[in-house]
């Protein structure tokens, strides 16, 4: 009944393997966290630095934000794991509607 999803017949080996896998995943999490911190720093520096014009800085920090959110979703929230097909479909549908709404509010709202 328990641990039916394991491969070998020996529960102890499986547990060890799982622990190792969890630890490995945690390492990936820490790496993505470090990258997120770096991206945040770059974004703040890009805005703080006088040399960049707004035309460069704004798209640049938006791209950084999107990448960072990708890390959050796929690593921290485990969307890279199996069994996330339906969540992914609905998140992306949500993103599509979000995108349409924001595009609309940036273009065809009166000013």
């Amino acid at each position, binding site marked *: 009944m328990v641990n039916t999803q394991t491969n070998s017949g020996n529960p102890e080996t499986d547990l060890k393997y799982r622990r190792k896998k969890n630890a490995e995943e945690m390492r990936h*999490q820490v790496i993505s966290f470090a990258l*997120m911190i770096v991206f945040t720093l770059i974004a703040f520096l890009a805005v703080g630095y006088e040399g960049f014009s707004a035309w460069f800085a704004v798209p640049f920090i938006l791209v950084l934000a999107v990448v960072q959110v990708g890390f*959050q979703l796929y690593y921290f929230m485990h969307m890279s794991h199996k069994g996330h097909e339906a969540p992914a479909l609905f998140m992306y549908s949500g993103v599509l509607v979000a995108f349409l709404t924001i595009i609309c509010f940036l273009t065809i709202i009166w000013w």
Partner: protein
Amino acid sequence: MHAEEKMTYEKWPAAPEKQTLEAKNKFLGFWFFLGGETVLFASLFATYLALKDRVPSADHALAKDLFEMPLVFLMTMILLTSSLTSVYAMYHMKNFDFKKMQLWLGITVLLGFAFLGLEIYEFNHYVHEFHHTFTSSAFSSAFYTLVGFHGAHVTFGLAWIIALMVRNARRGLDLYNAPKFYVASLYWHFIDVVWVFIFTVVYLMGMVG
């Protein structure tokens, strides 16, 4: 496998958050809820972008007058770190280490409170230094509503995680509460996702002008 069964380290499954049908439903339903939340925050962002710097008179503060980089940077770092600590909590949940999970969740909660405190300080600062109140302009209404909705989510998330920690302090982990912890951590990450866009779109783009 019954959800309320007493668990041991040996019996603990690889994906405790999705072991029962109830857990699978909760997992999926919560993701769908986050899909809806995405649209909710997009609507708030859209409103903010449409109303940014829309003020009744020239003496009203604009985005570039208001925001200060150090404070926002500090808030961002705190919230990002709290995302990592909640990942640590889930890591220990998967390894059936209840004590460490509670510890990391506790750190997450503390960071959350620190963030919330800074946000309150920030709002207070705007109101008193710049007379930038909820009712002073369309810009201010949109700003406080967007950032305030996020703050309300942080508050709710804190209450939720604390309730879970207190409730299960004595009983430890089982397959009934593991999905609850997991879903609460998803919620916490989503709050961080929203913040990434808030600090980029509201604060950084506001400072760029």
